[in-house]
């Protein structure tokens, strides 16, 4: 206590120390280790050795798995677009039209997080199944080819990803819409803007930070995901996440897996940095949740 009274500048340091130590030890150090591991050669049995000449791990990994990278980016991009299409009207409704039901609706948006991610994804196997509540009636009515299926297709994988990450899009958009000063919209109408005009020139620009943050928060987990591709897809829908997890946990090819994950990380951090430039970091970190 005496020490703190004499040096009040120590207070924030002491408050930060345990958390920072934890993050440095179990976030920063592992990533540095992973970078080092990507220059390893050898196997788990024979032991690994480090050499910068093993940069070929990167080129090998990239040439072998470029398809999975491309697919991850593509699926992630489409899923983010779908999330936006679902999230924006819903967030707009909650922010402007829901009235007293607002907090209940917001709770329903995050409700999926309170039950198992894996089971929810498996739930889609039931919903999209070959004789499910969607395909069953369509087939019975003869509207759809009896052999048609949703499961084990890229469509199912993208739909699953979009479903799992859409709350990350809804919440930031909602926050930015909710903050809009309603008087601005009244002013726009007083100045004879049509409701569409007011939406396009006032609401939308003010919602942009939320849209940017939401897209980022959806796209990042989307391109790293492997659960949806594994549970809802087929061998031709594997993403880079599937490769990384197989290399790490089944093949135990740590160097390749480390190179693959490091490239994924760099790809994402480059995206975040770009966004940070566009928005300012304070904006980004405060909009996150």
């Amino acid at each position, binding site marked *: 206590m005496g020490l703190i009274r004499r040096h009040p500048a120590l207070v924030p340091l002491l408050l*930060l120390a345990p958390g920072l130590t934890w993050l440095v030890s179990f976030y920063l150090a592992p990533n540095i280790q992973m970078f080092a591991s990507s220059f390893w050669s050898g196997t788990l049995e024979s032991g690994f050795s480090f050499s910068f000449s093993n940069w070929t791990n990167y080129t090998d990994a990239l040439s072998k798995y470029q398809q999975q990278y491309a697919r991850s980016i593509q699926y992630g991009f489409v899923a983010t677009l779908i999330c936006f299409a679902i999230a924006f009207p819903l967030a707009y409704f909650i922010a402007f039209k829901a009235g007293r039901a607002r907090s209940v609706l917001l*709770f329903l948006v995050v409700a999926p997080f309170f039950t198992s991610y894996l089971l929810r994804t498996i739930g889609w196997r039931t919903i999209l199944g070959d004789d499910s509540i969607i395909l069953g009636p369509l087939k019975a009515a003869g509207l759809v080819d009896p052999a048609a299926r949703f499961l084990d297709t890229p469509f199912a994988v993208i739909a699953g990803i979009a479903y799992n990450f859409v709350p990350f899009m809804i919440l930031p958009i909602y926050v930015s819409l909710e903050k809009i000063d309603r008087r601005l919209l009244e002013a726009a109408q007083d100045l004879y803007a049509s409701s569409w005009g007011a939406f396009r020139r006032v609401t939308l620009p003010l919602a942009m930070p939320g849209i940017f943050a939401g897209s980022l928060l959806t796209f990042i987990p989307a391109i790293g995901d492997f659960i949806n591709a594994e549970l809802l897809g087929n061998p031709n829908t594997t993403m880079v996440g599937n490769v990384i997890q197989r290399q790490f946990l089944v093949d135990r090819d740590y160097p390749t897996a480390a190179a693959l994950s490091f490239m994924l990380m760099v790809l994402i951090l480059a995206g975040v940095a770009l966004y940070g430039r566009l928005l300012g970091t304070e904006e980004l970190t405060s909009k996150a949740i």
Partner: protein
Amino acid sequence: MSLIRKIAAVAASRFLTIYASLALLYLLLPILTVALFSFNDPIGRSNYSWASFTFDNWLTLFRDPTLVSAVGISLRIALVSTIIATTIGTLMAMALVRYQFKFRKGIDLFIFLPLATPEIVLGASLLTLFVTLRIPLGEITLILAHVMFNVSYVVVTMKARLAGFDMRLEEAAADLGATPWQTFWRVTFPLILPGIAASAVLAFGLSLDDFVITRFNAGQVQTFPVYIYLKVQKGIPPQVNAFATLFFVATVSLVAIGALLQRRRANLKP
């Protein structure tokens, strides 16, 4: 405003309502499916298509000892990691919101980074560290990992809560002769308690449900999500759905009770 415009506005608003309802349905459909299939009596091993209604799965909730132990391990890890993450995360948030110091922005960004890193990278990089240091994988490594990914969530949530904190209340306490220690426990802590509770619920939920990072660092330990994953091929027993439904109902009730308590407290204020 012309009649056509009025009609267009009404139509747009109707459309928005319907669209929003459908979007909510989309969010809730898989949860309802999970709950519904806890009452299914599946034919064969896979619980994907509806056969007939039964209460059996709920009555035989504890039948598979592996499942029961997986649930126990998940709850234990969630509890320990939530306590640690909420404590150190709240302290960090207080430092970031209330003090000006060098590198504050940089530290802010550093804390945000784990949220911007895909889970698979978090899990995989921790695994390379543990393998290199020859740290055996198990419950301890899982707690280390879960605290790591939860800390950032707690900091972000708490920062938002602390930003609206009226510092004059603490000054008033100090003016009335309270020591910093008394001020903290009698003024600050009760006021930030709802925020701490909200962060803790979030952290607990994230830990309980984490699969990706856990999968990488669990070794032979089976948590609830790992158990589910390992059962996908052989067929997931419907008791799993019952447990998941139970967790869902428990958290929803907890959040509802918290909201009610907070509202009551707000009403009590003059």
